[in-house]
């Protein structure tokens, strides 16, 4: 199995561990990831606010490179990158205006793009291409007894991901169940927003959202929250002290990229998965997994 791989900007900074653990996990599963050559920022949400067409066009530069580089699907780990890239495909298909503008803009830099490169969220690849059964068979350390709250975040299946429900996604739950974990399937905050970039521009709002998420996971007895997006992880983990200060709470909730926890189940060691880079210590989680 081979995929083109788009790490996204966060993977080079705050979300470095997501990239490292993704490569380690996929290595253990025998999936080859070929990094997209000279990829650029997807444009994220900010670009939409300047000129919608700019955002589609700069996202499409990546898709044009992907189309040239290989026939494999493009695998994305960040929810926001996933949404932006997949949305570019959808709008190119739906709107002649977008299609024309994007083609013209790419033409200005000698690139072409058909609009047809499949953009896949890594969870979609794991659950639907590899399959739960095959995953279960490859587990070397089952996550037995570990109570996991899967935090999907907003842009995981909303508005693009048609591989899962936009309101109450379940694929990550099923994934960790296959790995033997005890998943808190009714985690009410699973697809709620973490506040995103608002953490910098309107902190009080974002903290309140993180508080709601942490409280939901905590009350449900979670041992760990796993994330599928660097921004979600950053906010829910990094801002726990600020949440505690603002709301008078005492959360000390380990938060991991789902690839880190999954990597453990497939036999990677914590160092390979950059688990030491977490701010809230995950030692408890690692120790709780039966050998």
């Amino acid at each position, binding site marked *: 199995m081979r995929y083109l791989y788009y790490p996204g*900007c*966060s993977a*080079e*900074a*705050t*979300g*470095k*561990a997501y990239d490292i653990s993704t490569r380690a996990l996929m290595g253990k599963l025998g999936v080859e990831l070929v990094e997209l050559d*000279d*990829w*650029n*920022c997807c*444009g*994220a*949400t*900010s*670009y*939409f*606010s*300047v*000129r*919608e067409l*700019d955002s589609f*066009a*700069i996202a499409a*530069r990546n898709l044009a490179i992907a189309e040239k580089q290989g026939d494999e699907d493009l695998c994305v780990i960040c929810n926001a990158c996933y*949404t932006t890239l997949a949305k570019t495909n959808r709008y190119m298909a739906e*709107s002649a*205006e977008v299609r024309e*503008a994007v083609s*013209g*803009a790419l033409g*200005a*830099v000698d*690139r072409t793009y058909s609009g047809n490169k499949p953009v896949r969220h890594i969870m979609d690849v794991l659950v639907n291409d590899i399959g739960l059964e095959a995953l279960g068979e490859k587990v070397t350390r089952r996550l037995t007894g570990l109570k996991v709250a899967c935090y999907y975040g*907003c*842009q995981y299946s*909303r*508005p693009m991901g048609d591989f899962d429900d*936009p*309101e109450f996604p379940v694929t990550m739950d099923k994934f960790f169940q296959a790995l033997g974990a005890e998943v808190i399937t009714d985690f009410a905050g699973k697809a*709620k*927003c973490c*506040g*995103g970039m*608002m953490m*910098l*521009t*309107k*902190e*009080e*709002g*974002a903290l309140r*959202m993180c508080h709601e998420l942490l409280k939901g996971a905590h009350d449900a007895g979670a041992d760990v929250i796993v994330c599928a997006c660097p921004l979600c992880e950053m906010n829910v983990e*990094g801002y726990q002290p*600020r949440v505690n200060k603002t709301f008078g709470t005492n959360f000390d909730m380990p938060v991991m990229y789902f690839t880190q926890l999954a990597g453990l189940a497939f036999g990677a060691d914590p160092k390979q998965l950059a688990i*030491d*880079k*977490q*701010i809230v210590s995950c030692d408890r989680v690692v120790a709780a997994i039966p050998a």
Partner: protein
Amino acid sequence: MTELATTLEALAVHKQFCEDVLNMPGGEKIKICQQCGTCTGSCPTSYLMDWGPREIIAAFRAGMIDRVVKSNTIWLCTSCYSCTVRCPAGIKITDLMYELKRLAIKYDLAPKDGKAPAMTKYFIDSVHKHGRNHEVELMAKFMLTKDWGLPFKFAGTGLKLFTAGRLPLFAKNIRGRDELDKISAYLEAQEAKAQ
């Protein structure tokens, strides 16, 4: 009616603004909003907004453009898309918020002291400079210009991130970063041509 545009020039901008919004992909759906409040009720930040998304749509339809662009609403959208997937009229509210931000900037109607507009600008500067968003540079710039207090609030977390190697000081530049400028220049030229 102080909120309604009065001068001829303002009226022209006003008209163009309305047309721009209705002409965005799916923009015509705004006309069939039944003011049910699903968007505002679903929005995680509506309690911080001067007007919720439902009221923004109502104000837009009433021609109260000043209220729309002067509100903090459009800058508080976190792009969680809850409203968009739930709207019974199929209005792409998240896209609408982007469109309103874009037009507020274009017609120079955005609040001058806002943090969110600045964040948007720095983000795009960073991407155009490096080809990727350099998070450290973005945060540093933002803190220096818009929020002096943030470094202190953020200090604990920031230090931990830094020591964990999650805040690299130097940006990686992509080879094709001039392409992004060319793409933007092309689209800008097209837009100018169309007008």
